[in-house]
């Protein structure tokens, strides 16, 4: 198998798997129970939260653990009032788009041809009724990094303007960091965000665990109430094993971050060079502002899904340009936003590399991907 879809899911690291096991077994206790062994489980849980928080430059108490990015995003959107307006970038994940759509009052911030938010468009749209600006750290379809600190400056300026004008409406910046976390620095202070969504499933942690960083003074409304866990913001017995594994996976990723980036950058260069031999190929995004694990490209005329099905016969797994959207026949809004034609969108593929890749399998993948696409082009020409 050559796995080229790390942006969709990553395997659980052996280290993370090992550390979580006792919490299913001997340390299974409910962390809310009073006796000592349960208290020890609670300490381990709190320590894991601190460890996760540390990676993003926060404290454990700033985190609300959730079932994953989608829940975190929903929780982030719980901060807004009924008549609020929301701004999201044009390259957001479906979860953000769906949350925004529910408000009935949202606008998209335009992006350039590389999928980067146009700051002047944000400045234009940041009106007095905007309560939430939501921009991803990295676009899941393009791998494009967003200028978070510049975006933050615009949000902060608006917040200051409102303070000076005695306007009561708050404004927050939420960043969905499900893509990018573990492969780039994501400190809340440097990003300048009030809310940050993170997720274990893409950093070699388990599925079903994520968190929302909630900045001081930001008021979130719980989606579920009950026993009052997570400071009342997310009731339900804590997912101790997954939280502990998340902490380990994230810390490991952080520790090897710069070496892994360098390694992936090297693989990306080689694979890109090979793919460039495909007639009519078009690469999306700018090298400088793209995550080193990502290659996004399109081959107009070719049906990307056919390429997926052809390559799976060689046990090479990658994704169409719009991972979630493609199988439903929905055109990817992100690919549309960067100005691709329908034909280019239909012919879009996404490669996201990671730990399962090395020089050898990337070389083989390059050969096979080129062959599959060129084969398909030939088949189409015959017809």
């Amino acid at each position: 198998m050559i796995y080229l879809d790390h942006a969709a899911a990553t395997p659980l690291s052996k280290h993370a798997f090992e550390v979580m096991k006792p919490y299913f077994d001997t340390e299974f206790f409910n962390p809310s129970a009073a006796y000592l062994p349960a208290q020890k489980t609670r300490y381990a849980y709190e320590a894991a939260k601190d460890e996760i928080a540390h990676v993003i430059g926060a404290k454990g108490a700033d985190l609300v653990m959730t079932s994953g990015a989608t829940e975190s995003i929903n929780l982030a959107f719980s901060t807004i009032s009924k008549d609020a307006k929301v701004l999201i970038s044009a390259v957001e994940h479906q979860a953000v788009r769906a949350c925004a759509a529910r408000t009935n009052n949202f606008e998209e911030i335009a992006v350039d041809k590389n999928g980067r938010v146009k700051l002047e468009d944000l400045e234009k749209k940041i009106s007095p009724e905007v309560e939430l600006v939501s921009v991803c750290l990295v676009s899941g379809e393009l791998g494009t990094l967003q200028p978070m600190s510049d975006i933050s400056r615009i949000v902060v300026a608006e917040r200051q303007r409102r303070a000076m004008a005695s306007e009561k409406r708050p404004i927050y910046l939420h960043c969905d960091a499900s893509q990018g976390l573990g492969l780039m620095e994501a400190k809340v202070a440097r990003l300048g965000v009030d809310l940050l969504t993170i997720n274990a499933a893409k950093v070699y942690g388990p599925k079903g665990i994520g968190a929302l960083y909630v900045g001081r003074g930001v008021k979130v409304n719980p989606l579920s109430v009950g026993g009052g866990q997570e400071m009342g913001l997310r009731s339900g017995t804590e997912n101790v094993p997954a939280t502990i594994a998340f902490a380990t996976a994230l810390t490991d990723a952080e520790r090897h971050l710069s070496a892994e980036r360098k390694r992936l950058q090297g693989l990306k260069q080689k694979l890109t060079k090979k793919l460039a031999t495909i007639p009519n190929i078009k690469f999306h995004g700018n090298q400088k502002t793209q995550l080193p694990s990502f290659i996004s490209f399109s081959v107009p005329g070719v049906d990307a899904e056919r390429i997926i099905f052809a390559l799976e016969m060689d046990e090479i797994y990658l994704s169409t340009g719009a991972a979630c959207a493609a199988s439903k026949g929905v055109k990817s809004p992100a690919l549309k936003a960067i100005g691709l034609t329908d034909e280019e969108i239909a012919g879009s593929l996404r490669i996201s590399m990671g730990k399962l890749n090395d020089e050898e399998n990337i070389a083989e993948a390059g050969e096979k991907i080129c062959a599959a696409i060129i084969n398909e082009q030939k088949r189409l020409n015959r017809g």
Partner: protein
Amino acid sequence: MAKVFLGMSGGVDSAVSAYLLREAGHEVVGVYMKNWSKNLPGMKCPWAEDLADAKRTAVRLGLDFRVFDFESEYKQKVVDYMIEEYKKGNTPNPDIMCNQEIKFKLFAETAFEQGAEMIATGHYAQTDGKNLLRAVDENKDQTYFLYRISADVIPKIIFPVGGMNKPDVKKLAEEVGLTVAHKSESMGVCFVGEANIKDFLGEFVETKPGEIRELESDKVLGLHDGAIFYTLGQRHGLGIKTGLPYYVVKKDMDKNIVYVSQNLNSLSLWKKEIQLKDIIIRGEHDLSKLQARIRHRAPLVAAKLEGDMLIFDDEQKSLTPGQSIVLYSGDNCIGGGIIA
């Protein structure tokens, strides 16, 4: 060798059909008909997965593949028809309507427009180029669902698996490495046909509760949640607590009353002759010597057709208005009609 447009559902029968057509040297275009995509209560519509399975098979066999979007036509011709029939108190068969209006009409027309010389599907049925014939696999024969297809289209149909037994189809799928070889089989042809009819109708029709009465005594035995949901001969889901089971023997749609009886010999349940409507007969046949099938997989029974009356040699049970009776002359599925 012909240019064949094959309807691919994502199941094993149409996948093996694709393989067989390709092996026979035809130029095959796989087509997924997107007829329905809405989830229903308790049922996730598997169209996206089915489409992916169909496309995957096409790619593995190196075939061209297309999607025909028939959602609005399906809604109009099949679903609306079905709802109307239920409202009248009948129990329609959406699969039959789907074959008549969508698969062997709209699909065929669209395929021919796009250059097809022949069409194919994974149904268990056969043709001799003129007549619709029963499948070799008696147990899987689907001519019951196909009896209303037009005589004009039959010469242009290939049923690649109609001459095979189902176990052999599955075996072949496995041997040639088709990924859908072990895909679980759905009973009906259409998704809508598989849905719990109560849940399905609940989405489209407003219903009110009414009385369940005993036919003989007119005594009220209980309440039902809409006469529309009940079918003649139905025994389960009546909510009557007694020793012997009750059967639905009659429905009064205007008064919203369902009549039941414990008497299995009730005249309402057993009939020797029945009036048919919308009869179609393909070709010339001796209508006094026919075999009839009163539901899918039911054994063939001797009958004769006189005008619009079908007369059985022996009494038949639970002949339900809206359901079809399909007529055979030997292996030839000559047509049939809908119980009036």
